[in-house]
C-alpha cells in the first residue's frame, strides 16, 4: 500500500528503482482509483520493470501476459479442458445411466441429463490463462499486459471488459467478477496506436529517457561499483548519442549494459579506444555505430584537449595511475 506520492518514490527506490514524481504520481493514482495504467515510451526505459517493481513493493503476485500477433482469448483468458471433459464422461458413464434409469421417455431422460450439464461446464474444466488467474485470485495481484500494441485489434476490444469492470464473461458459465481487484499495467512501444476506447479506460503514463541527473542516480544504484565521475561521463555521452539520428536509440538498459562493460574492462575514464571498442554494446546496427563513432571521437578529443589545457601538471599522475591499472 502506498500512502502518498513521496511514499511511492521511497518504496520503489527501496526496490532499486529510481523514478521521478511523474511516474510516482501515476502509480499512486492507479492504486487509489483502481484504474489500469497504460505505460508508453521508447523501448528499454523500464516500462516492464516498473510493473515488476510495483508488484514487489506492494507484495503482490505478478501475473504477466505477453502479447503477440495472433494472441486470442483461449490463450489469454481461459480454455475448456476438452480431454478432461471427455475422460470424465467416460468414467462417469455408469453414473449417467444411473441418472437416466427409470425415466419414462426420451424427453424425460434428456431433462434429467440436462439438469446435470452444469457439471461439465463448470470451473473444474476450465484452464485459467493469465487474465483469468488475475481476476479469480483470492489475493490482490498485479496484472502486466506486456506489449499490448503487438496484439491484434480484436484482442484489444476484448480487453475492454476486463479493464473497465474487472470481470469476464464465459458464455457457458456466466460472468465472473474479480474477487479482488488486480492492479493492471499495460505497456506499449507505440508499434501502433491503441484505440481510444482502451485509452479512455486507462491512466496514461509516458516514460521518456530520464534526465541526466536521474540517469546518473540510476547508474549509481544499479551498478554499485561505478565511479561517480565515470557515471556522469557515460550519461553525458549517452545523451549525446540519443540526439543523433539513429535507427535504434539506446535507452537506460543500454546505459547500464555499457557501464557494466566498462567496469569489466577496468576502464576508469572514457577514452577513444575504449569507447569505440564497446560501442556495439549500446548500438545494435552497424550504421548507427559508424555515425556514433564519428560524433564521439570528435567529442572525446575535444574533451581531452580541454582537460590537458586545464591541468597539465596532473597529467603525469593520471598516466601513472593508468599504468598500475593495466
Amino acid at each position, binding site marked *: 500500500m502506498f500512502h*502518498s506520492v513521496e511514499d511511492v518514490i521511497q518504496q520503489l527506490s527501496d526496490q532499486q528503482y529510481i523514478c521521478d*514524481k511523474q511516474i510516482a*504520481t501515476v502509480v499512486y493514482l492507479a492504486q487509489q482509483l483502481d484504474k489500469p495504467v497504460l505505460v508508453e515510451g521508447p523501448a528499454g526505459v523500464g516500462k516492464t520493470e516498473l510493473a515488476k517493481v510495483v508488484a514487489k513493493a506492494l507484495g503482490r503476485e505478478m501475473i504477466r501476459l505477453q502479447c503477440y500477433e495472433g494472441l*486470442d482469448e483461449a490463450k489469454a483468458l481461459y480454455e475448456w479442458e476438452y480431454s478432461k471433459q471427455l475422460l470424465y464422461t467416460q468414467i462417469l458413464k455408469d453414473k449417467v445411466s444411473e441418472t437416466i434409469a427409470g425415466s419414462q421417455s426420451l424427453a424425460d431422460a434428456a431433462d434429467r441429463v440436462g439438469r446435470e450439464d452444469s457439471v461439465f461446464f463448470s470451473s473444474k474444466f476450465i484452464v485459467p490463462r493469465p487474465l483469468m488467474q488475475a481476476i479469480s485470485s483470492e489475493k490482490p495481484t498485479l496484472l502486466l499486459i506486456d506489449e499490448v500494441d503487438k496484439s491484434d485489434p480484436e484482442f484489444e476490444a476484448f480487453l475492454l471488459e476486463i479493464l473497465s469492470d474487472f470481470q469476464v464473461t464465459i458464455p457457458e458459465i456466466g460472468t465472473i467478477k474479480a474477487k479482488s481487484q488486480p492492479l493492471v499495467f499495460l505497456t506499449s512501444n507505440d508499434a501502433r496506436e491503441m484505440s481510444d476506447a482502451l485509452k479512455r479506460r*486507462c491512466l496514461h503514463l*509516458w516514460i521518456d529517457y530520464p534526465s541526466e541527473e536521474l540517469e546518473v542516480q540510476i547508474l549509481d544504484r544499479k551498478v554499485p561499483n561505478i565511479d561517480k565521475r565515470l557515471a556522469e561521463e557515460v550519461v553525458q555521452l549517452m545523451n549525446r548519442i540519443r540526439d543523433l539520428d539513429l535507427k535504434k536509440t539506446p535507452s537506460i538498459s543500454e546505459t547500464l549494459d555499457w557501464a557494466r562493460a566498462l567496469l569489466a574492462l577496468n576502464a576508469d575514464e572514457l577514452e577513444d579506444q575504449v569507447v569505440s571498442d564497446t560501442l556495439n554494446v549500446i548500438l545494435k546496427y552497424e550504421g548507427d555505430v559508424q555515425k556514433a563513432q564519428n560524433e564521439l571521437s570528435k567529442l572525446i578529443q575535444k574533451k581531452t584537449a580541454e582537460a590537458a589545457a586545464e591541468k597539465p601538471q596532473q597529467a603525469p599522475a593520471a598516466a601513472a595511475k593508468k599504468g598500475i591499472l593495466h
Partner: protein
Amino acid sequence: MQKKIIEFTNLLRKSGIRVSVAEGIDAFNALDELSLDDREVFQDALRAAMVKRGDEIPTFDELFGLFWSGFYDNLKDAFSDMEGDLGEMGVDLEQLLSQLAEMMQNMEGDLDLGELAQALLTQNLSELENMIRAAAEEAGTGRIENMLQVGFFSRRTTEQLGLEGAQQDLEALTERLRAMGVGEEGIQQMQELIRKLMETVRRTVRNFTERELQQQNHNYMEKFRREMLTEKSFYHLTEDEIQRMREVVARLAQRIKNILSIRKKRLKRGKLDLHQTLRRNMARGGIPFEVVYKTRRKDRPKLVIMCDVSSSVANVSRFMLQFMYSLQEAFTKIRCYVFVAELGEVTDVFNDKEVNSAVEKALDGGDVINVYTRSNFGFAFHEFWKNHLSAIDKKTTVIILGDARNNYNDAKAWCVRDIQNKAKNVVWLNPESPSAWGFGDSVMDKYMPYCDIVEECRNLRQLSKVVDQIVL
C-alpha cells in the same frame, strides 16, 4: 476549482486534444486523492487522466503553463504594487482601509455600496478574481482572436464588471465622509485611493484579456500549423516543413495500416485452426461442424509506381514514395520506377535501405537514370512498354505521378493505353490543377482517356485521399 478544470478541459479540446467526459471525471477523482500543494503533482495527475498520446504531451504542458500560471498571483502583484505606490505618496493603505471600515460601521443610514466597491475596499482578491472572470465571460473575451481586440474586450469586461458604478459608489462614500466632517487631508487620501484602485483594476483586466488572447491564440496557431501542413501545396515546402511532413506522412500511413489489419478477414480454406475450431464447436460436443482456418484473406493489390522525379514534381514523388514504402505490407509486391526522360527501376533501393535514404536515393535517380535532363514522358513510357511491360498483370494497379509537361515531345499515349489494357487500373496523379491540364506543353489531355482515375494531387490531404482509395 471544478469550474476551472472544466474550463481547462474545454481549452484542451479546442487545441485538438481529445478529452472525453469520462476522462474529465477521472481527473476530478484523481485530484481528490492528492494534495494540491505541489504544482508538479497536480500537472502530472491531470496529464495522466486526460492526455493519452505521447505527441500531445508538449501541447498539454504548454497549455497547462498558460492556464494555471495563476491570474490570482497576477492580481496580488498588481495590488501590492498599488500599495507600494500609495505608500510612496504617504498613504498607508492598511491603516486607511481599517479607519474607513470603522467609520463605515458608525455611519448612519443605508450605505449603498455595490459588490465590486465592497470587494475593493475589503481587498477581497479572490472575490475580485471571480468577478473579473465572470465579467470577461459575459463580455465574450473567449472569442478574442488578435492583438487589436485586446482594448475592445478589456473595455467591455470593465463595463460588465461595473467599474464605473463602483467608482460612483466610492465617490458617494467620499462625499458622505466629507459630510461627516472628515478633514481635507483624509478626503484627498480617499480620492487618491479611488484613482489608484480604478487604475489597478483596469490594468489587471487588460492583463487578463491578454492572457486569454494567448490561450486562444495557441489553439489558433496550432490548428493553423496543422492545417497548413496538410493543405499546403507540395511546391512550396521549406526544408523544415519537409522534415515535419515526413512525420505526418508516417502517421497517416500507420493509420491506414491499422484500418487494414482490422479489415483482414479469415479465408475459407487453408490451414486448420484447431483451437478455434474446437472452441467454436463446443456446443456440438466437439464435433467439427464449423471449421475455422488460420489463413487470412490476402486481397492485396500489386503495385507499380512510376514517378516523375524532375525537380518540378520531386516533392510529390517524395511523399508518394514514402507513403508506399510505409505501406509495403499492404501490397503483395511493389515495383517502383523513376523517370525524367530515361526510365529506371529502383525497387531494389527500397528493399535495401531504410525509408528516408531510400526515398532520397530514388529521387536522385538511384544510379540508374540521369535526372538532369528535360522531361520526356513519351520516351519514358515507351521504354517501359519495351522493357518492363511484363511487370504488369491483371492484379496490378499502376500509379503514375507527373505533371505531364512533355516539352513538346511526342506523347506516345498508346503506351499508356497498352499499360491500361494489361493492368487492373491506372491512376494518374497530377500536382497541377486541372485547369492547366492540356495547356502549353502539358499533354495530360492525351493520357487522360487511358487512365481509370485521374486526380489532382497537390497537397497531403489529396494524397492521402488517393492512397485511401487505392489501398482500401
